[in-house]
């Protein structure tokens, strides 16, 4: 006895469904059946957010360099203002990138670009400690001629190496 062939367009036939289009389901799969698709932030948005976060602390660096540096006999010296502005820069960076971004998922730059940093496994903000560790892990992205920062161009979850180390993703 043989079974009749499946009718055309039979959803239970042996047809292999075509792979999903870009954007239809994210790279790396949509997870469990029926689970919501994750919309990862693109590389441009991530670079834009990072630039904004850097521009925010740039004035402190400029003020420190102009008001806090002197040159005596060809040797660069630093006065108290230099270190004050350096500390201010670190404090603003820490509040923005570690405390606020760890608590809400959004630094000022990410907020401006409408993207959020979350834990790759639970989808929640990662906390200040992990946000700090993630910035430390960017050392790995930097050391290989900054190639680690390009990984979101081709990675399935658009992660940098730092993201992979601390298990984070940036979503829209």
């Amino acid at each position, binding site marked *: 006895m043989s079974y009749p062939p499946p009718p055309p367009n039979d959803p239970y036939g042996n047809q292999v469904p075509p792979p*999903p*289009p*870009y954007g239809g389901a994210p790279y790396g799969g949509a997870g469990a059946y029926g689970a919501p698709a994750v919309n990862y932030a693109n*590389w441009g948005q991530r670079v834009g957010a990072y630039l904004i976060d850097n521009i925010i602390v740039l004035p402190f660096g400029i003020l420190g360099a102009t008001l806090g540096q002197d040159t005596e006999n060809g040797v660069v010296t630093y006065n108290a203002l230099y270190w004050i502005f350096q500390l201010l820069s670190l404090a603003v960076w820490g509040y923005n990138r570690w405390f606020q971004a760890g608590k809400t998922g959004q630094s000022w730059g990410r907020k401006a670009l409408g993207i959020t940093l979350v834990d790759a496994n639970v989808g929640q903000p990662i906390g200040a400690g992990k946000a700090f560790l993630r910035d430390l892990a960017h050392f790995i992205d*930097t*050391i290989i*001629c*900054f*190639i680690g920062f390009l990984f979101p*161009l081709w990675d399935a979850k658009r992660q940098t190496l730092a993201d992979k180390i601390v298990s984070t993703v940036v979503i829209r």
Partner: protein
Amino acid sequence: MREFSVPERLGGFGALVAVGAVVWPTVTARTGAGLPCPLRTMTGVPCPACGLTTAAVALVRGQVDTAFHANPLIFGLAAFTAVAGPLVVLRAAGVLKPPRSWSSARRRQVGWLAGLIATASWIFQLHRLG
């Protein structure tokens, strides 16, 4: 707007690199800024991407030989850049089908290939600078 495929994204990045390579010599001449390899600066060992800035600047000036000797990877990026524009246009016009996500097996294969290319580039840089 649809999501861009990996080759299209790499092509877009290559276009940015080309623009950067045009203005970079002026920036370095006026400010003295440089873009040294952090790994080489810290350890003395070059990384697989060493020489890409030199190669990009040489290539946009048409100095193919100099570009090749600095880092041949730049020609891969140039190929993506050359292809990406027409690809996006043809797909937008409906001449070509929209891109499809790769299977995980295909991703693995391409990942291995990329790893091999990076290793070959590292050997090249170690020979060139080591």
